[in-house]
């Protein structure tokens, strides 16, 4: 009696082994099996992520970034770590052409860190092309304690415009105040000598 094993318990054991093996060995194999198709990742590449990394490392080829992302599960930290570690990214196969992977607009790369290349001793008015704006402020009086505008905007270009405006306000207000002070001083001297 004790040696006989009941049929139901055999069936249950077989079922457990079957699902166990399936769970542990076959499940992870399924996605990797799908992965071996021709660059399926190319369809899922998040262009925002490519841009993000490309901004940090403009010297790295954007196609290589996309290729790396397509293979490491679209992980930005893993990609940046790899670039920083000094291991060059793998060259993508020639047939790898993710859609929308156009270079970032040239206008943004042209602007770059501009101040570094400025000639020595250049004044702020000519550096920021404010000569034309000097005329328009000539007649307006800068109110005493005029403040610089502040604020925030939702888009990158609006923020850039706002920043430019604040910068110009600060420079032009200062210039105007200094001119007025010089004029007052000259007037004071004129009166004193009369």
């Amino acid at each position, binding site marked *: 009696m004790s040696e006989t094993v009941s049929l139901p318990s055999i069936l249950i054991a077989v079922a457990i082994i079957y699902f166990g093996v399936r769970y542990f060995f076959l499940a992870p194999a399924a996605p990797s099996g799908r992965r071996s198709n021709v660059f399926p990742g190319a369809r899922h590449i998040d262009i925002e992520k490519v841009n993000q990394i490309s901004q940090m490392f403009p010297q790295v080829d954007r196609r290589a970034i996309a290729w790396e992302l397509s293979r490491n599960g679209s992980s930005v930290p893993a990609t940046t770590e790899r670039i920083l570690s000094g291991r060059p990214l793998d060259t993508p196969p020639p047939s790898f052409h993710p859609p929308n992977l156009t270079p970032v607009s040239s206008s943004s790369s042209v602007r770059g860190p501009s101040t570094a290349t400025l000639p020595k001793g250049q*004044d702020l008015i000519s550096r920021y092309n404010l000569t034309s704006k000097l005329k328009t402020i000539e007649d307006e009086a800068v109110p005493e304690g005029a403040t610089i505008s502040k604020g925030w905007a939702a888009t990158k270009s609006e923020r850039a415009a706002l920043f430019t405006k604040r910068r110009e306000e*600060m*420079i032009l207000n200062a210039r105007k105040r200094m001119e007025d002070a010089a004029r007052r001083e000259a007037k004071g001297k004129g009166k004193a000598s009369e």
Partner: protein
Amino acid sequence: MANPALASRRLFSEFKALSTDPPAGIVAGPVSEDDIFTWEAFIEGAEGTPFEGGVLCAELVFPKDYPLSPPTMKFTAPNPLFHPNIYPNGLVCISILHPPGDDPHQYEHASERWSPIQSVEKILLSVMSMLAEPNDESPANVEAAKMWRENRKMYEERVRREVKGALGL
């Protein structure tokens, strides 16, 4: 470990704070958001100093492991900026821009030096007070320090001239 994504996020939030609630006399932000690690900062010269009425412009360059390491700050206008704590090439020498472990002069308190709880705003405010009150213990510009100590009037005259020059006057 350097984490450029973390550094970018931190710089972006500092940019936002400095735009919505800026300290008086300060405008600062990235030259272009495409490179959040290069900023320009504008500081109004404080009243009662020879910088009064002027606008000083500096470039800040942040390391990829900011805020663990401090940025560098370099004045680009007036250029040169004649000050005991500013190198003739415009580079600012101030304790808040020195990493905590690195104290070449052995006189700065750890609390004055850089740590991740400092910020761009604190750097700019420290520079503002440094402009008003130079520290001539370890001059970056020996000529400026000497003139500041021995011939204050001449020093102030020279600074006023440079500040005017920066505004195209």
